[in-house]
């Protein structure tokens, strides 16, 4: 059963479909939440909230806007950022950025073994892993601050004391490599 079929079944009130979707994504989403909120109990709260939201809003899912995985990740990330902001942890996280940053690509781990996920998603995950391993640390840093800490590009520029144009360039190059690890790296700073 595809992810999209499971979400459609959830929209009809099928709790077993929710359980199946949970089995596919809970570990990955919990890992995401844990990286963001840093505390296991908080991470599980975030995951629970994300699945609750998915259950409530399954009827609104539109596959044309992206796959279920991206939908679930977006909800989890949003809930995690809500929690971080609500608890005023951002300042503390800033101090911990050196610890939080996955500057060691090996620490990014391996994609979860999800038997029922489509092969193409496995392939994409492999590509992303490859890209993450090869990303220059300054690009990885920008992606991390934007994605896992919810900083705007302007905030990243301030945090890193780096021109906004450089931040934008790093982000664009990083995303290009994440989309396609074979993407040739353009020299940084052209937009500065």
């Amino acid at each position: 059963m595809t992810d999209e079929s499971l979400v459609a079944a959830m929209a009809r009130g099928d709790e077993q479909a929710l359980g199946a979707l949970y089995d596919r994504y809970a570990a990955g989403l919990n890992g995401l939440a844990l990286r963001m909120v840093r505390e296991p109990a908080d991470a599980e709260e975030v995951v629970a909230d994300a699945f609750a939201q998915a259950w409530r809003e399954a009827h609104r899912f539109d596959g044309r806007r992206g796959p279920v995985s991206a939908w679930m990740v977006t909800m989890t990330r949003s809930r995690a950022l809500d929690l971080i902001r609500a608890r005023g942890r951002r300042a503390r996280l800033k101090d911990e950025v050196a610890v939080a940053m996955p500057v060691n690509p090996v620490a990014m781990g391996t994609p979860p073994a999800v038997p029922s996920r489509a092969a193409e998603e496995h392939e994409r995950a492999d590509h992303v892993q490859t890209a993450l391993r090869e990303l220059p640390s300054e690009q990885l840093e920008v992606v991390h601050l934007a994605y896992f800490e919810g900083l705007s590009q302007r905030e990243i520029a301030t945090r890193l004391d780096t021109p906004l144009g450089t931040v934008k360039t790093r982000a664009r190059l990083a995303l290009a490599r994440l989309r396609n690890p074979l993407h040739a790296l353009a020299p940084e700073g052209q937009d500065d």
Partner: protein
Amino acid sequence: MTDNPRDLVMPWLLGELAGAEAQAFERLMASDPDLAEEVRATGEALAAMALATPVAPRPELKTRVLAAAAASKGAVLPPIATRRSGAAVWLGIGLAASLILAAVTSLEWRSTAADRDQLLASRDSALGAIAVRDSLLARFTDPELESVRLVADPAKDPTIRMMLDAKRGRLTLSAAELPQLGANQDYQLWYIIGGNAVPSVVFHPDAAGSALALDVPMPDRGTITAVAVTIEPTGGSPAPTSTPRFVTPLGE
């Protein structure tokens, strides 16, 4: 709008664009298939990155997620069990999470989502459960209320905690890890006033040994010298028929 719309792919995906800026970018996507494809591919790549460090949550989280979903389809609170009809709202459960779990396991859910009225009623019921939880949290964190803890034996786990609201003449009771009772038995709370046991609310723990009572009426606190809990026949008794399992003195 920035000079290079590619710079807005990530901000748009991360929800940082709003209002006119977001609409302008979406119009651009609609007219530029390459940009739209770039956005889609970037979104998938970011999702793959986000999922790249799996950490299994505790097994009970799945139970909780499914229970919450089931509850949202039509949670029904356990029946009220009190000797004083309308005097107190009894929920044969612990906190909201166990409330939902208990409801889930005791009900046969309707599987159709087509019944909108049922869904709306379910939502209202779930919201009610949340309100109960919030109310409980508010009471147990109110600095003006007096906390009383009843213990069967200091060395054992089962406890009953009460928050006494002297101004309102009400108490809130929360019990944890109570020993299970027979099918024909309930716990009953007693006020000891002038050497006499005055009957109060009757409660039955759920499968986890939890019980919760809100807005239990209490006599003038100045006359209560102790509170106690006994095991009584179902529905309670006008006078204690067993020795107290929990007891604690009140007042100075």
